[in-house]
């Protein structure tokens, strides 16, 4: 294990865009802001930049902590930093909060300058393609013509894949971790139940709950509880909670009895206290719509014919949300199109959440790959 220094104090920045963004749906956002953080130094020819794309509940605070909030550590701090697999001594790492998010970038809870009210239900339904288009504008602003790599897990992995299709010449390497080339009917079904929980909460008010000064906490909590079940593996739940009872006995009531109930409700409450319900809806829809083969009659081989990047695809054995078999659906069209691609299947007990966990072999794979990427440009 290579000893790594903590990344230390970081700070967020905000970029403003006044050129209208036309969404895939046809909707137009006249202006918007993206919050982002960067770590490491951009080299002279700006060839060492890595974009980290976040998943459903992620944001721009990828690594490090804030001077005024030292407990607020970035969501991928174990992976990104000095001497870490995504090594900030070599790479300039960029993380942003996606458009539609609720961590500072323009989203449903932001004020619509045309009405003076939060966008709420008026915020356009967004796709992975729209995110990539907005991320490219941020890259333009920072003078990054081509990313050394675009990296993401889960929904972030889908954005990384989309980069290779929307801007084939702007990304040299794609690392798609715990991802899939599209959602299955089962995945969409889970998302629909999550959305139904939010949409049917009386406090949702058709998405305009801000003006009623309420939050659809119950719906959001249920959505997160359901989601959380799909992020963990059966094994890890059995291991962590089993059939443990809080009181050590049955109480024959509907109060919290099993430890797993307590854990899920805690996770649900925590999430509902800070996450925006409209953002949750947008994120799950972006997941549902993602399907690069859609415009090619369902032919993923044809969809990936445009890609020019090299790829590293990683899956986790106990991930049943995006299983190893789904990751291989990404690998096959890359083989068909004779792209450089490596595929690693990591033995891990943590289910879909494995991509966020520190795991020596997983980290060795990412480190080995990125060390070679770093060898491609002058320091």
């Amino acid at each position: 294990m290579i000893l790594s220094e903590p990344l230390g104090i970081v700070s967020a920045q905000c970029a403003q865009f006044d050129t209208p963004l036309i969404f895939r749906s046809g909707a137009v956002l006249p202006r918007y802001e993206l919050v982002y953080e960067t770590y490491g130094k951009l080299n002279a020819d700006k060839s060492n930049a890595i974009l980290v794309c976040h998943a459903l509940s992620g944001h721009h605070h990828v690594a490090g902590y804030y001077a005024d909030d030292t407990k607020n550590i970035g969501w991928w701090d174990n992976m990104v930093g000095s001497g870490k697999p995504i090594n900030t001594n070599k790479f300039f790492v960029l993380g942003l909060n996606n458009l539609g998010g609720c961590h500072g970038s323009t989203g449903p809870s932001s004020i619509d300058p045309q009405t003076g009210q939060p966008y709420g239900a008026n915020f356009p339904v967004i796709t992975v393609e729209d995110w990539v288009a907005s991320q490219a504008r941020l890259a333009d602003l920072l003078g990054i013509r081509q990313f050394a790599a675009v990296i993401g897990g889960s929904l972030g992995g889908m954005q990384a894949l989309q980069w290779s299709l929307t801007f084939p010449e702007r990304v040299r390497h794609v690392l798609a971790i715990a991802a899939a080339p599209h959602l299955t009917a089962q995945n969409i079904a889970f998302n629909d139940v999550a959305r139904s929980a939010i949409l049917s909460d009386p406090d949702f008010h058709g998405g305009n709950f801000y003006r009623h000064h309420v939050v659809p906490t119950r719906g959001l909590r249920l959505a997160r509880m359901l989601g959380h079940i799909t992020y963990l593996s059966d094994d890890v739940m059995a291991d962590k909670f089993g059939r443990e009872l809080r009181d050590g006995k049955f109480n024959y009531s509907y109060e919290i009895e099993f430890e797993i109930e307590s854990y899920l409700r805690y996770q649900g409450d925590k999430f509902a206290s800070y996450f925006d319900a409209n953002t949750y809806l947008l994120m799950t829809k972006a997941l549902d719509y993602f399907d690069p083969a859609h415009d090619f009659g369902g032919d993923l081989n044809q969809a990936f014919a445009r890609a020019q990047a090299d790829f590293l695809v990683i899956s986790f054995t106990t991930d049943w949300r995006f299983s190893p078999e789904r990751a291989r659906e990404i690998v096959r069209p890359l083989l068909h199109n004779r792209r450089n691609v490596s595929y690693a299947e990591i033995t891990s007990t943590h289910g879909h959440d494995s991509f966020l966990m520190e795991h020596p072999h997983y980290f060795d794979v990412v480190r080995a790959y990125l060390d070679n990427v770093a060898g491609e440009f002058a320091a």
Partner: protein
Amino acid sequence: MTQNDITVLAAERPDFAAIAAWIPRGASVLDLGCGDGSLLRYLKKTRAVRGYGVEISDLDIVSCIANGVNVIQDDLESGLEDFEDGSFDFVILSQTLQATRYTEALIREMLRVGREGIVSFPNFGYWKNRLCVLRGNMPVSSELPYQWYDTPNVHLCTLHDFEMFCDRYQVAILDRRVMTGEREVNLLPNLLGSTAVYRFQRGV
């Protein structure tokens, strides 16, 4: 990989040079059971091949990636379903044949995915191996470095055995090189050769 590395590799693995001699520049190659990616690296350097390895071991996956070799983590024995028919010029099984469980199915898969197949394996008919068995023990050597109880080798064979196998399953042998160390063996190969390399295609 430096010229020095290439020389060292060629000396350690004489089958590498034999395999490389059959592969034209720029060919596409799939290396099954590619280990740390040494053969692919060697072929990239000496033959400018475009290729992928298939490997199951976690440690080897990291080595391949560090060696800049494309590698797909998978179990050969479950088939090569990620690879399309006729998608490679050569499919190579280097020093792995003897450790495969479903050997016939794997050879068939090799010839589905590749135009030609190449295998290298230790010749169990080599006189030193025969002598060991005559003396009453299973052979242990540089080619067969395992004890009977810890060997991954389940399907050891002689040159004769492999050729009979090919005959039976309509595999057409195109070329053969037999070696002991770096020296090529032409006289009584099934007795005097320790390693065999075959190039083959689908028979009619």
